[in-house]
């Protein structure tokens, strides 16, 4: 089974000896999370200024506004990420929206020092390239080229996640962290626990049950969960042909009952194989 996401899976073995699979966040998801966070930072700075304006009843001097911007920009720029990632969820609002979180690469505690280290490095990954870009657009010819050269140099840090397998930022390397997907899986209803009144009408021979393997049966489960009438008809047709059964004999039109019955029988057949240590991975697998 070739999963396009398989390259992003990393194994974490718990102290109990069970392997858990973490899926690393894509570079795109992380960039999107950063964009969300940057927008939030900007919006909150503007909001604070407006709030202060009303509280102070308008500024007679530029002093209060200057202090709010200087201090607010400094605190947001350096501590916004640190503050949020220090929480229980280890994620900024942007990461939370994209269903990501920060974890320590060794699976241990995510210390305050690590969170701080990974975010202080944003200084050279994000802000330094921005400064070079800004100065390139303002300066004359000679320092323009210097700025472009500087931008190219800092680009190494900016685009570092694209150049390593683990999608590590410079900050992640320095802090021993990585960013993983944190999507909650919902548990689908148990297909074989439900009563299926039509099931008695069908019975399958062991040869018919051995046609498919684990992969096909799990795809069939997806189809049944999805419950799209057109797909049900198509899939039922395909399976009937594969088993050499005619639609008429089984009573066409009751495709859902047929699929339910076949799924239940085939899954139990394969699971019984599992209990005996035989896993039939897909229809090409010769096991059992």
């Amino acid at each position, binding site marked *: 089974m070739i999963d396009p996401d398989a390259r992003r899976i990393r194994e974490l073995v718990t102290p109990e000896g069970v392997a858990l699979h973490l899926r690393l966040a894509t570079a795109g998801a992380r960039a999107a999370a950063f964009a969300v966070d940057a927008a939030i930072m900007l919006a909150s700075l503007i909001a604070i200024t407006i709030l202060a304006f009303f509280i102070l009843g308008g500024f007679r001097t530029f002093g209060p506004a200057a202090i709010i911007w200087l201090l607010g920009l*400094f605190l947001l720029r350096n501590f916004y990420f640190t503050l949020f990632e220090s929480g229980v969820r*280890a994620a900024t609002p942007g990461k939370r929206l994209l269903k990501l979180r920060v974890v320590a690469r060794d699976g241990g505690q995510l210390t305050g020092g690590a969170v701080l280290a990974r975010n202080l490095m944003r200084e050279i990954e994000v802000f330094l390239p921005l400064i070079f870009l800004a100065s390139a657009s303002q300066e004359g010819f000679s320092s323009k080229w210097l700025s472009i050269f500087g931008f190219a140099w800092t680009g190494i840090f900016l685009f570092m996640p694209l150049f390593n397998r683990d999608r590590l930022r410079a900050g992640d390397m320095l802090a021993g962290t990585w960013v993983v997907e944190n999507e909650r899986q919902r548990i689908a209803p148990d297909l074989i626990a439900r009563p299926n009144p039509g099931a008695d009408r069908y019975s399958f021979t062991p040869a018919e049950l051995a046609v498919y393997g684990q992969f096909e049966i799990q795809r069939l489960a997806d189809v049944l969960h999805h419950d799209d009438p057109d797909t049900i008809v198509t899939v039922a047709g395909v399976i009937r042909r594969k088993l050499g059964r005619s639609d008429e004999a089984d009573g066409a039109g009751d495709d859902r009952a047929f699929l339910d019955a076949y799924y239940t029988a085939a899954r139990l057949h394969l699971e019984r194989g599992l209990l005996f240590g035989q896993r039939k991975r897909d229809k090409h697998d010769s096991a059992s």
Partner: protein
Amino acid sequence: MSGAALAPSFGLSQFRAERESDWQRLEQLLDLVEKKSPKRLTNQDLIELPRLYRATLSALSIARETSLDGSMIAYLESLSTRAYFILYGCREPLWHQVGSFFASGWAAAVRGIRGEIVLIAALFFASALAGYALVLSDPTWFSALVPGEMASGRDMQASADYLRGTLYDPPEQGGLEVFATYLFTHNAQISILAFALGFAFGIPTFFLIAQNGVMLGAFYAVFVPKGLGWGLTGWLMIHGTTELSAIILAGAAGLHIGRAVAFPGMRTRFAAAGDAGRRGALVMIGVVIMLLVAGLLEGFARQLIVDDGARYAIAALMLAFWILYFTLAGRSLDDRP
């Protein structure tokens, strides 16, 4: 046929039915911890949480080997992962972290990079000397070393009276608080940059530190020949003992990570970088605090206190405080692993 199929089916569907309430309970507890706070857990919950986690983890192991219910396996894996990070990734409360940072963590981190501190301090003072010698030997160096807006008239052509005025005259306009804020944020940002640039094998950090040292030396070359060296030192050091210490610490923290990345020694490069990065980050939080103190001293104290003696007293007091704090705080804990 159907009888044979039903017998195992009983066991396997029971497997899910009899455990599902445990999983839901674990999910509720995790939601409570993530959405509200770990403090909301009752004693009963605290006892249950690890038990439910292990039960879920063992259910995952069994399901992987015996079940073809893909949705259940994916659910159990995501639930176990969530629970794992809450149980094993948990941290001390924030206030304990802050407390232990000031009691021992900060000073211990600073002691951990003492080699780099010595090196950076030597580089800083050597470049200050170099700047001083350069400008004395050829005054045209001054404009090359110090940017115009920074010098603001305090250059080689300035008269002694004008220079004395910059040291002792009260500032023309108010707005000390804006000035202090600007100094603090600007200096803190530069030192964070110096730290982060350490990642490039520490080389840019060297340049930043040397540049600062040379500028300091160049200013001395302007003031000393006019007999204002003593006054300039007081004017600088009232906040400078704090600020220069902070800059040297930031440079040393940057060099520390640069050294770990370039020469990891017996450890892997990632392990060495991780250790150095976490230690450096602790030092940097301290640097930001020191620069806040320095910004207040520079923005307020220096403008309000014009007596050289008082300025020197404050400078010496601050320096003694930092040295004592860094050498002694949390010392007894250092031997602990």
